């Protein structure tokens, strides 16, 4: 099975082989060493400790804000009537959106056989998971009575009541729960062969023990690989529609309402595009420093950044189209309330957020038409940050400007986020990066076995005749064996 498959894959790689997706000179052994050494190295770099300390203190801030919220009630936030939703929903949508890139990279690109995904899919998936975790706390925190959150689930109860299926919030519960579950399983299944590698590479008893348990008895048997591939592709197939459905449903949270500025059929596709847009921006935001910190230039190459920038450009254009459509529909419908909301967005009290959104999400990404910009990491990093901020503003504009002035002028109001809004938001950013720091320290941030596959295929392309039909799995096994003796010697210096 694997022979056939890898050959078909290699065709694909060679067809588009001109930009390298793995650095020259990398061997199966060297990638294994390189990636596993980050996890297994004794001693922790100071910057990592500092980073974790900072992000963990933000987690403490988050816990403080949440504790106070639970003690006092939602009133500690700036939400009110008419603006019943604030930072909680903005951040929820923002985080869910960020998560989308991971699923897109790991599932959709896997099915589309895009080899370049290999070196970024693992941490992109981790990013998805952590982003979904950050997102998922918000719908619960934002409830007036969060201890009753389980009433949104269908479970047999003495009330004889089910959730109200017409409400998009119920769809949301299912969408997010499914998404989180699938993402977790997909990520974990992807990790299993690497966990076995780490188990085998580890020196200490405790890491061996832990990785041993987590590897679930993976022995690299051909039958394992065969079932593994089937399962992995099935999961990818399951995850793929979620890329579309989750953010469509998040979009419907708004679109199903009657509020001008929310009630719009363009929302589901436009939300999905926006999600991928912001997700890729976040992947770039994380990949650039990671690559530099761990010297992963040979694994995360310029090809990756080039491709991701193109995805950002494409989805950014869809987002821009969404903005245009909203304005067009407001004008074309002749609906005074819609027209007012659009005017109010552009020129009302929250106009700065609107213009910040347009600049960050429409103007700035246009730089990516330039190949030079796409290959300038410093610029790319800045652009990715701007896009992340811009997409946050997009949600802010959607939630706040639509609600603060809707139908009845006498009921119009303003929304001012409080300290607790900000600290909860900053706290989840801290949570996200704290998890990220932990992840890069304790798990392989790049898929070792997929990199080995890739290296093997690349090698094979270069030395086609010499090795003949060398199976990926066998190659990986061979590389493993040869890597062990040189492990300690090469780990630190590279």
């Amino acid at each position, binding site marked *: 099975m694997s022979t056939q498959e890898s050959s078909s894959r290699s065709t694909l790689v060679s067809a588009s082989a001109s930009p390298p997706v793995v650095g020259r000179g990398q061997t199966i052994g060297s990638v294994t060493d390189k990636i596993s050494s980050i996890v297994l190295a004794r001693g922790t770099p100071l910057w990592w400790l500092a980073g974790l300390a900072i992000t963990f203190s933000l987690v403490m801030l988050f816990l403080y804000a949440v504790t106070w919220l639970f003690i006092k009630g939602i009133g500690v936030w700036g939400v009110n009537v008419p603006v019943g939703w604030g930072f909680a929903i903005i951040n929820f949508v923002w985080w869910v959106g960020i998560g989308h890139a991971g699923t897109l990279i790991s599932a959709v690109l896997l099915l589309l056989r895009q080899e370049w995904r290999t070196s970024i899919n693992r941490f992109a998936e981790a990013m998805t998971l952590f982003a979904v975790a950050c997102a998922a706390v918000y719908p619960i925190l934002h*409830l007036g009575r969060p201890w009753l959150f389980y009433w949104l689930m269908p479970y047999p109860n003495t009330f004889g009541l089910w959730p109200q299926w017409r409400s998009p919030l119920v769809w949301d519960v299912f969408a997010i729960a499914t998404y989180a579950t699938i993402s977790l399983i997909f990520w974990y299944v992807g990790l299993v062969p690497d966990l076995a590698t780490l188990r085998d590479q580890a020196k200490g008893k405790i890491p061996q023990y832990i990785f041993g348990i987590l590897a679930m008895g993976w022995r690299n048997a051909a039958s394992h690989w065969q079932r593994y591939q089937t399962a992995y592709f099935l999961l990818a197939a399951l995850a793929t529609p979620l890329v579309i459905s989750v953010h469509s449903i998040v979009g419907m949270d708004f679109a199903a*309402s009657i509020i001008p500025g929310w009630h719009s059929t363009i929302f589901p596709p436009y939300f999905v595009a926006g999600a991928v847009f912001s997700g890729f921006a976040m992947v770039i935001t994380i990949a650039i420093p990671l690559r530099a910190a761990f010297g992963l230039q040979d694994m995360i190459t310029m090809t990756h950044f080039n491709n991701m920038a193109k995805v950002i450009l494409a989805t950014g254009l869809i987002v821009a189209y969404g903005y245009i459509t909203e304005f067009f529909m407001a004008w074309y419908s002749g609906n005074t309330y819609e027209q007012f909301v659009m005017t109010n967005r552009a020129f009302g009290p929250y106009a700065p957020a609107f213009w910040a959104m347009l600049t960050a999400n429409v103007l700035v990404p246009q730089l990516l038409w330039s190949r030079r910009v796409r290959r300038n990491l410093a610029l790319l990093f800045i652009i990715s940050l701007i896009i992340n901020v811009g997409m946050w503003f997009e949600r802010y504009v959607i939630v706040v400007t639509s609600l603060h002035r809707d139908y009845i002028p006498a009921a119009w109001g303003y929304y001012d986020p409080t300290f607790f809004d900000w600290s909860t938001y900053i706290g989840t950013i801290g949570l996200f990066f704290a998890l990220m720091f932990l992840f890069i320290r304790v798990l392989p941030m790049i898929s070792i076995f997929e990199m080995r596959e890739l290296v093997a295929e690349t090698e094979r392309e270069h030395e086609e005749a010499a090795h003949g039909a060398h199976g990926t799995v066998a190659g990986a096994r061979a590389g493993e064996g040869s890597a062990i003796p040189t492990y300690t010697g090469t780990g630190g210096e590279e």
Partner: protein
Amino acid sequence: MANQELSISEIRRRLAQPQSSKHFWRSLDEVANTEAFQKLLAAELPRQMAASLAESARGTTRRDFLKLMGAALAMAGLTGCSTERPRETIVPYTVAPEMVVPGKPLFYATAINLGGYAIGVLAENHLGRPTKLEGNPTHPASLGGTNALVQGAILNLYDPDRAQVVTRTGQINTWSNFLDELNPRLEQMAANGGAGLHILTGNVTSPTTGSQIAAIRERFPQSVWHRYEPVNQDNVLLGAEMAFGQPLQPIYHFDRAQRVLSLDADFLLAQPGSIRYALDFINLRRVWDAPEMNRLYVVESTPTITGAKADHRLAMRPSRIEHVARALANAVGVPFLVETGEGLTEAQARWVEVVARDLMENGGSSLVLAGETQPPVVHALVHAINQALGNVGATVSYIPPVAVEPVVQVESLRELAAAMASGTVDTLVIVNCNPVLSAPVDLGFAEALEQVPLRVHMNLHFDETSARCHWHVPALHELESWSDARAYDGSVTIIQPLIAPLFEGRSVHELLAVLSGSTTRDPYEIVRGYWQGYYAGLESPPQADAELFWRSALHDGVVQGSAPAPVEVSLQIAELPAPSAPVEGIELNFRPDPSIWDGQFANNMWLQELPKPLTLLTWDNALLISPATAERLGVASHDVVEVSFQQRTLRVAAWIMPGHADDVVTLHLGYGRTWDEKASQGVGFDAYSLRTSEAFWSGAGVEIRATGETHELASVQNHDTMAGRDLVRVGTLEHFLEEPNFAQATHHVPAETSEGAAGTGVHAGEAPPPSFFPEFPYDGNAWGMQIDLTACIGCNACTIACQIENNIPVVGKEGVLNGREMHWIKVDRYYSEQLDQPETYFQPRPCMHCEKAPCEPVCPVAATVHDSEGLNQMVYNRCVGTRYCSNNCPYKVRRFNYFDYTGEEIPLMVMWRNPDVTVRTRGVMEKCTYCVQRINQARIEAEKQSRPIADGEVLTACQQACPTRAIVFGDLNNAESLLARQKASPLNYGLLAELGTQPRTTYLAAVRNPNPELEA
């Protein structure tokens, strides 16, 4: 321990622990038994302690407010909240007392005093707990309606900041000690005729009190009785004296007045008969029923709701309104010479001319009235004008003043101040009056008071005056005491208590009996005794015996035949003083506050949070200033300005008020209280500190200087216009007659299908909206509501009535600033686009109970659902608080419990709650229920009798409180119901009905009746 210095925080810590009332005692004992505490007491530190508590609670959250109130309660060492019935027989309004059934309220007729004038109410009593006041339909000043102050009065009863015990120089003492000090002194004074005994009261209309005063006079012929009410009728009486040679009180008959001109008279809100007047006035504006209308002209300086309802309004300096009266007098031809002066511009002169013509054309059915804020000469002119128009006896009649022995109150207080300063006052007894706060500052009352050897004060609160008196005796609330009072027209209501005194208060009658040396001290005996005498003196008594007379008076809430007959008047003006010279510079108006009146409701948090009509401010007063003047002075809303007036200054936040007369500013009275230990301490700005006896209502020569500071004022509405939307649909009478369906014509409103029952009352005849869902069938009742925007005067009585009925919490100023006020029905106020002289519209906005409610499908847990009678219900227990329903409500009528507003209230503060309505917890959405508890009560009664619920049997709280009956609730399935008939009017329209929500609450478009001659 005992020798240790006891810190304030230590006391607070110890007192902060108690949960139960028993605990209060124990903690207090523990603290009070220490020597250190005694030392504190001696140094009068408790008050400072409370002050420091208050300090920490400044800018208070609502909860702090309540804790502070609770702390004050603990400090006084009293927890007694009794629900004992009074010992005497009181007569229930509908059902005999032996029928007290848990869960079934009883209603008793009694009255609430406002400025001495009784407003008849029916007090709802749940197992001995008064919980709500409704208007008494048989009482002439109410006719079933109330106003915000009457509604709010019940919270004064339960105010934990009330004085709770007799004190001497601020320390707890006893009534008997008080008598021991007072009686020997009285006997001494009796020897020389009582010289040196002065009594100061508020405005007194109580016949019993009058008789007691007479008894005191008998014992002390030399004693002097002073009266002072900071919002009084002095000018009215002086004006009548000028016109007729005797002090008389005009009674207006708006039910016969087709043309009304008000000269600074806020007769819809601020006059003694306002509740009645508003109904009579609006009854001639029910255009849905009969297509004819009266017409109202208003000349005023400070915008009022009366001005807002005017068909033509002229904003003017207060000093120039006299010139309008003079010009009008000449135009209608009064029988004496009137110098007009040169106060009017050409446009104003023309305005007066047109109005005069209109009034004359309607001679005999027109009415001109002047407000108590205008000088006597304006009143005299108005009397002459009415006489010339033939209105006397038709739209206005005159009765002897309602007050007992009326005096010019400012002069009465001036005499007292002078007497005190000269040292001739030996003993001063102040009853139900707070002159240290409210006396004109130029009288130097507070300083003069210090000269009096014995000062006794009786009032509901330990207030500014109490702090300067030797003795303070807590007064009783109307709902705790026997008394009587006259309404604006002289009708007497016997005030019966619904609950035994909560604290150690004493009745006014008991105190006066002490002074008169009477042995009858029991207020019941005193009041009953007076009326027995009255009955005995009747020539042809309406009842067979005194007992029956007494019982029927209590039952009805009115003593039959007690209103005096109108007197014949003849004009005795020969000559008027020359017109006052036009005033230059900025003028300052003083007005009673619509929410807290003269300050007596300052500690009432419902009223503090009730948006004031027009400004929609809560928790503050402000310096109202016109847009043009503000622009000239460079002042914006929320700016703190320094107002200098006659060498006195006040720093106050400004508020730009469209429609305000230029070069005039207004301050409302009663704020900025300095009283200790009160939750309202320091809220707002003290207008009394600028008010003098000369500039009692307005004065000229004000300087305003911006300070560069700001003070955030909390208004419940941030946007003043309708942003070009047709939320309030307005037409003129002429337009309505030409095009009756003007309110519907220009709007595409999807209506329900014909078989969809009388679901929503949206006018039928248009295409049904496309829908996948069939209309819901309604076999039984289908409830609906309609609000007549022509009739709504924007007084906010509905808002507070709803708040009390439905246990709606207050959120404090901070909550209002955050947009979290909880009122289920809010009266929106919109201005037309012109900034300086805008037209003003009111629109009460409760839940619309949409047939296709947008809130329902978005709730993930089905906590808001439709019921079989069309109500959109909120299931509090099911709500998890996603707030999506609120977001998706186009009317934004849903309110959310952002904090636990109800959980931490002290026992006294929960006594007012309506037991029929769930108290909501934190994190739960709530909204108008159409008073479902009242529907259910009516249903139970109807089912017991196997009959359908009759039309008018269910009155929602807002409907019942509304003085003008602008709100109608009823069954849409009953074609005979008033509601169904009103909904058939072409003026009926649904707010935002174009969204397809099919609102059950609809509106009758506002119709105005402008004079075509002034339209241009």
